[in-house]
């Protein structure tokens, strides 16, 4: 039998605020000495009162708007009661019945083209502390406790591991564009859970869903879903039934494992947090947040296609990072710039360097203006492609002006016919066999002689001219 996969995703995103959700402690907790960012509020000292971080509300609302959600003016923080030392209060403050954002969608790419994934809600809560288990004790660091955490929940319209992967990528792109989060999964700034079930193709009923946690990388999302789908099919094909359980993804072994069920049922006894005042967002507040939205990835992609006539593959690479897109645009809008060759260089040489050296485009020494100047030198025939790469290397490492580099390094292309004629004659004389082959009609060998001429001229010869001269001298 053929099966259809049904997936819903829950993504937790840590907001990039300076301070925590309900207190003035620094929100930064990655590689920070344990329990240095704590205070009476986030360690639940009696009498300490929380106050909502306005920026966290704005960033969450911005994310909601970017995901085409409705903003709920009256949204409510509630206590989710559970006793576990990752939060010292005995509850987590979260949004339950009335979240800040609801009913949105994200467009992803599926096998059958663009597809909308419904976003049921985007709400705000507080992150928990970090636990470490050693010997007979557990050690707790509350630096992360109370850090603003946004949860984005989809409906069950994701149909494959690839779609889940693309969805996650789109979410990360959006939160990065908004400056809402680093979206860095390796550092735990984005964490993911998937509800997975399968059903016979064509069926309208949902199968029993299994919740898979611990999806801490893009690879884990794809692999865990693929594995879990396979496992469920096997269970059904062997005449069994999928049980509703919570699984954890074991990255090392590449398997999902059932997590020990809690002894008591999950009864969180939610109720409105009485320590916080009501939230009734005014239209002005919502409009102001809306005006703060930058151009979003999907809109940028459409514009790049229309204005610069780039192909979808280049666009996808360029818009991945808003700073790279801005760099491209600054270069492409320079007078005399050819957007397509700018795109080639940015997605090619510059991207390779950024990735290899793990640097940000903001720190690149090659300015957009210098790149355009370099491309103009190639276009005007002042230098050839070889020299252009050499100039680029110099620009990348030290910065400076392309024209000056060409001058000091003596990279100017030789387009002087008499000078090249001499070099060509010399090469033909030194390679009589090759010359014979060409005369016999083996034109591929022209490339060999061209290479020799390039060597002779230290890479500076105008390749088109060299080709012409070889053919002319050999009369082919």
């Amino acid at each position, binding site marked *: 039998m053929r099966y259809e996969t049904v997936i819903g995703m829950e993504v937790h995103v840590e907001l990039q605020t300076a301070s925590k959700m309900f207190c003035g402690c620094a929100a930064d907790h990655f590689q920070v000495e344990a329990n240095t960012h704590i205070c009476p509020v986030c360690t639940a000292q009696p009498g300490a009162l929380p106050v*909502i971080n306005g920026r966290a509300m704005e960033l969450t609302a911005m994310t909601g708007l970017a995901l085409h959600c409705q903003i709920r003016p009256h949204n409510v923080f509630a206590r989710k009661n559970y*006793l576990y030392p990752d939060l010292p209060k005995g509850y987590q403050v979260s949004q339950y019945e009335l979240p800040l954002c609801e009913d949105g969608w994200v467009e992803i790419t599926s096998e059958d083209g663009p597809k909308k994934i419904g976003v049921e809600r985007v709400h705000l809560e507080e992150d928990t502390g970090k636990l470490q288990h050693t010997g007979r*004790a*557990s050690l707790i660091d509350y630096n992360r406790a109370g850090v603003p955490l946004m949860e984005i929940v989809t409906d069950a319209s994701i149909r494959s591991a690839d779609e889940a992967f693309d969805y996650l990528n789109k979410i990360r792109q959006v939160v990065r564009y908004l400056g809402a989060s680093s979206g860095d999964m390796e550092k735990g700034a984005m964490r993911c859970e998937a509800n997975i079930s399968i059903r016979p193709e064509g069926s309208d009923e949902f199968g029993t869903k299994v919740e898979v946690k611990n999806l801490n990388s893009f690879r884990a999302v794809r692999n865990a879903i693929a594995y879990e789908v396979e496992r469920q099919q096997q269970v059904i094909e062997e005449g069994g039934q999928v049980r509703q359980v919570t699984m954890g993804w074991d990255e090392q072994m590449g398997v999902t494992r059932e997590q020990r069920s809690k002894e008591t049922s999950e009864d969180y006894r939610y109720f409105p947090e009485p320590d916080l005042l009501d939230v*009734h967002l005014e239209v002005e507040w919502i409009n102001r947040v809306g005006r703060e939205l930058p151009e979003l990835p999907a809109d940028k992609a459409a514009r790049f296609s229309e204005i610069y006539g780039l192909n979808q593959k280049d666009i996808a690479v360029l818009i991945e990072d808003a700073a790279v897109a801005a760099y491209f645009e600054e270069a492409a809008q320079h007078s005399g710039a050819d957007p397509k060759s700018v795109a080639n260089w940015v997605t090619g040489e510059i991207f390779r360097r950024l990735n290899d050296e793990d640097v940000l485009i903001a720190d690149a020494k090659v300015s957009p203006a210098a790149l355009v100047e370099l491309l103009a030198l190639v276009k005007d025939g002042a230098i050839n492609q070889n020299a252009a790469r050499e100039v680029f290397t110099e620009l990348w490492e030290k910065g400076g002006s392309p024209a000056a580099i060409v001058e000091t390094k003596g990279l100017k292309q030789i387009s002087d016919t008499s000078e090249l004629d001499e070099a060509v004659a010399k090469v033909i004389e030194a390679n009589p066999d090759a010359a014979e082959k060409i005369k016999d009609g083996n034109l591929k060998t022209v490339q060999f002689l061209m290479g020799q001429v390039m060597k002779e001229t230290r890479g500076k010869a105008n390749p088109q001219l060299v080709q012409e001269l070889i053919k002319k001298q050999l009369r082919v």
Partner: protein
Amino acid sequence: MAVTVEEVRGVAALARLSFSPADEERLTGELNRILQYMDRLNELDTEGVEPTSHVLPLANAFRPDEVDPSPAVADILAAAPQRQESYFKVPRIID
């Protein structure tokens, strides 16, 4: 509305508390007296009144996103029953 001993036991378990049977009985009685008071409040006609979780006529008390380090960091750690270096230490939670 009234709670049973079983419900009291369940709530106690969620809060990691355990009571002797005598205390369970006593607490059930006390909780039920509180619920009876709620029943009395429920007699009020609240038709057309918006539910609220507190009585202050204030909303949207937002804080600017500024770091304001607590002067009490050392005191909070010092108050921990057990610690190791700068970690709070508790009996091992998972095996």
